[in-house]
């Protein structure tokens, strides 16, 4: 047994060297028009050797290590804690929520513009992730082209404002509804496909939409994108230094305060906050309604769900459409925040990031997804030297989560329903 383990460990270490050394240790570098191979730094070489040694030791003592890892259950205890009694929990939750929202409202006035901007981005990701959570986490449909609906929302606003001068408030519902319509139309034919095929087909749809945006230059501006997307207004008041449109007034003049570019940023943040709260609230209600239960039922056991009279297409389509709706929402906010959009922002990687958020947070769990969205967006900013490792870490995290903790860091907790005795 030991000899066998030893041989296997040696083999694994060798494989580690083979897959790490050429790619990491030998760097292709362009010198003028010529390409040469340059050995990487000594640090990299040592790291590769170290990795091989670690793999060797891990494989040699695999059984013991695995037993040790099995003992790490702190997270589980957190997740499996006894739910509080209903009234107490409700009161606590309400107080917590009010406090949280109050802080979220006041906070931007005391920090830098960059921080507020980042927070707006976090809120956009929260909306996206909550929407995708409906599709992936609740309904169990792996949608790899989610970013397409985000793009529909963003481009709807961009095009409406460019061609018809539509404002943010007009574009917001139209963008979301149009994205939902896209979801409905695309979803109808593909939703009877099996899970893994569905994933690939949605990925294909996402790419097709991106390619169309890239090449339909006359309308979308192609790779150059569309600029000049207006900021949102507050009851017709604009946030720019000068009023862009006839008949509007500007915010700082109305209130007689000095112009500050921060007003706009904070206002946009507040809009995103309201929309994110709206998204979370609506989805939370939906989860507890018949439609939400049928999503989960279909995810858990499609055959049983059908045997109880649930129509597979109808239920899946509702999840797909509602998910798309919120992506369209987020897209409109995003377009407004950037002022400029191009197909660059809607690549597959973006879908993958949103998926990573849902997977890390815990599929189906709203709180988990929100926390994960915050973590995934802010951590790379805090540790800038590591930010280029962001996607590498996401990829690795997705694999690790599936292997060790497919339910996510903060798995969904079921609502307890109190029944009347006797019935």
């Amino acid at each position, binding site marked *: 047994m030991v000899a066998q383990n030893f041989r296997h460990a040696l083999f694994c270490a060798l494989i580690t060297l083979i897959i790490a050394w050429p790619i990491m240790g030998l760097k292709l570098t362009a010198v003028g028009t010529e390409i040469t191979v340059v050995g990487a730094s000594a640090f990299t070489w040592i790291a590769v050797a170290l990795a091989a040694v670690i793999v060797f030791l891990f494989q040699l003592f695999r059984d013991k290590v695995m037993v040790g890892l099995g003992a790490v259950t702190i997270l589980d205890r957190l997740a499996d804690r006894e739910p509080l009694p209903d009234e107490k929990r409700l009161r606590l939750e309400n107080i917590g929520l009010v406090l949280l929202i109050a802080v979220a409202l006041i906070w931007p006035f005391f920090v830098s513009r960059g921080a507020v901007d980042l927070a707006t981005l976090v809120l956009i990701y929260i909306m996206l992730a909550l929407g995708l959570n409906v599709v992936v986490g609740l309904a169990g449909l792996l949608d790899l082209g989610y970013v397409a609906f985000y793009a529909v929302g963003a481009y709807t606003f961009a095009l409406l404002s460019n061609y018809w001068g539509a404002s943010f408030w007009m574009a917001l519902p139209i963008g979301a509804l149009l994205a939902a319509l896209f979801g409905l139309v695309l979803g109808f034919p593909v939703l009877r496909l099996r899970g893994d095929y569905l994933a690939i087909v949605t990925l294909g749809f996402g790419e097709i939409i991106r390619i169309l945006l890239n090449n339909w230059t006359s309308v979308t501006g192609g790779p150059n994108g569309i600029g000049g997307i207006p900021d949102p207004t507050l009851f017709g008041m604009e946030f720019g230094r000068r009023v862009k449109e006839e008949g509007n007034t500007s915010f700082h003049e109305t209130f007689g305060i000095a112009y500050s570019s921060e007003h706009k940023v904070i206002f946009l943040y507040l809009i995103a906050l309201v929309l994110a709260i709206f998204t979370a609230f*609506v989805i939370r*209600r*939906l989860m507890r*309604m*018949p*439609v939400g*239960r*049928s999503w*989960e*039922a279909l995810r*858990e*056991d499609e*055959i*049983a*769900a*059908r*045997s*109880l*009279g*649930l*129509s*597979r297409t109808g239920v899946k389509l509702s999840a797909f459409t509602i998910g798309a709706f919120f992506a369209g929402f987020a897209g409109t906010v995003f377009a407004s925040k950037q002022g400029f959009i191009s197909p660059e922002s809607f690549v597959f990687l973006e879908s993958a990031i949103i998926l990573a958020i849902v997977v890390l947070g815990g599929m189906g769990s709203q709180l988990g997804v929100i926390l994960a969205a915050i973590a995934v967006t802010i951590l790379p900013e805090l540790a800038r030297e590591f930010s280029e490792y962001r996607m590498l870490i996401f990829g690795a995290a997705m694999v690790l989560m599936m292997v060790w903790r497919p339910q996510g860091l903060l798995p969904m907790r*079921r*609502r*307890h*329903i109190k*029944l*009347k*005795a*006797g*019935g």
Partner: protein
Amino acid sequence: MLEVQNLSMRFGGLLAVDQVSLDVREHEIVSIIGPNGAGKTTVFNCMSGFYRPTGGKILLDGKEIQGKPDYRISRLGLVRTFQHVRLFNRMTVVENLMVAQHRHLNTNLLSGLVATPNYRAREQKALDRASYWLERVGLQELANRDAGNLAYGQQRRLEIARCMVTEPRLLMLDEPAAGLNPAETRELNQLIISLKEDYNVSVVLIEHDMSLVMDISDRINVISQGRPLATGTPEEVRNNDEVIKAYLGEA
């Protein structure tokens, strides 16, 4: 009420069910028995709409229903359980029962979002019905557990309760006693009889546990290798030479 006429089902070259007929009257327990691989579950899958039969008719109150999609058949009041229990494992016991009642609920999105009185009233009624059936099958205490964490016998009962909250006319049970211990089987026995007596549901039963079948069936259909072998009361079937041969082999 339900009539199956000359049902046939072919998979590629294999004729899994060949000219099987059976009928179920109101207020009756009918069993389908037969050796392993006889095609019993295939008959069920055709009746519940999971398979489109390749031949024959299935009539409900004289109307043909064969080949209709599964969820439509279920909405007509023909509801089934599965050989290997199929619950919504990561949903709670109550939620399992609520899902089943979607037909009785107000599924309008808007009225749900703003929680109109009508919506709430129906939701409450569904909860009450769930609560009633949980008590009926003895799972009241476990209402908020995840269905996947129940013991096996409890899962079997939950599956039956989940069918019953849909207020079916005909209940199709596929090996409900499989994996139960003798005490649980006795309880199940009484439950099935009570479904028929107290709730006016007809039952079609596939079962291996002969003592259960012989005890509660009004009539028994025996199929062997996809073909009908015998029909009759338990007494008739028990003494039928063909049946004995099918089970014990040629002497």
